[in-house]
């Protein structure tokens, strides 16, 4: 039994995300793109200290509403 099979499913998912061997236009590629776009668009620019971005971002707006 290989080391990879011994790993649990979440660990295997992380391994495949890091050691990327998937082609473009696969469902795994779509998932990665969604995760990246979510990070780019939802993270409040203040959290990253973005020098040029304006507006709080979606998470920032939600947090402001919750306060």
């Amino acid at each position, binding site marked *: 039994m290989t080391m990879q099979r011994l790993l649990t499913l979440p660990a295997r998912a992380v391994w495949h995300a890091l050691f990327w061997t998937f082609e473009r236009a696969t469902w795994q590629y779509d998932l990665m793109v969604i995760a990246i776009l979510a990070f780019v668009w939802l993270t409040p620019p203040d959290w990253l200290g*973005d020098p*040029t971005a304006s507006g709080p971002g979606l998470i920032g707006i939600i947090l402001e509403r919750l306060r």
Partner: protein
Amino acid sequence: MTFTGAIGAACMFPLRAIIRACVALRIHPNVLTLVGVFINFIAAWFFAQGEFVTAGFVMLVANIFDFIDGKVAEATNLASRFGGFWDSVMDRFSDLSLFIGVIYLYAQLGRTDYVMIAAFAMMFSVMTSYTRARAESMIDKCKVGFMERPERIVLVMIGAFTNRMGAVLWVILVLSIVTVLDRIYYTWRALKAQEAAS
């Protein structure tokens, strides 16, 4: 069909018309590559001025040239090994110029933290290409890792159009580091397997 596949297919409609026009006009693919680089220099200048949306549009035009050169070369039977080499070299000029534009802007704003983030993103973007090129001089193929040039270009355009360049640079930096490590690991494994077989 996946959603990224659908976006790719939709983008191919206008691109096919541009490719047909270039073929009809007998424009040499190496000229298209060079024009793309010069347009990318203009995009870099707009980045340096902090005009992200304009830079994004200019990048869009530049990358049309970048995308169609190979297709025009095939359609006109002008595909050559030198053309492939020329394309790769010009791609590096384009990539580096865009990063230099962003670095200049952050330096002007006095943000040394983002100067460093952009500089490291630039370094690992170059290393992403270099590790594959060097690996493929020893092994058959080294196409592993997510953050390749098309992903990088699309991400920079998304950052420019939506004014989220900081987040985009972080993504490019982290995933480029991972991609370089993937390629080093993959090449090490492939070379070990070759040695074991011989």
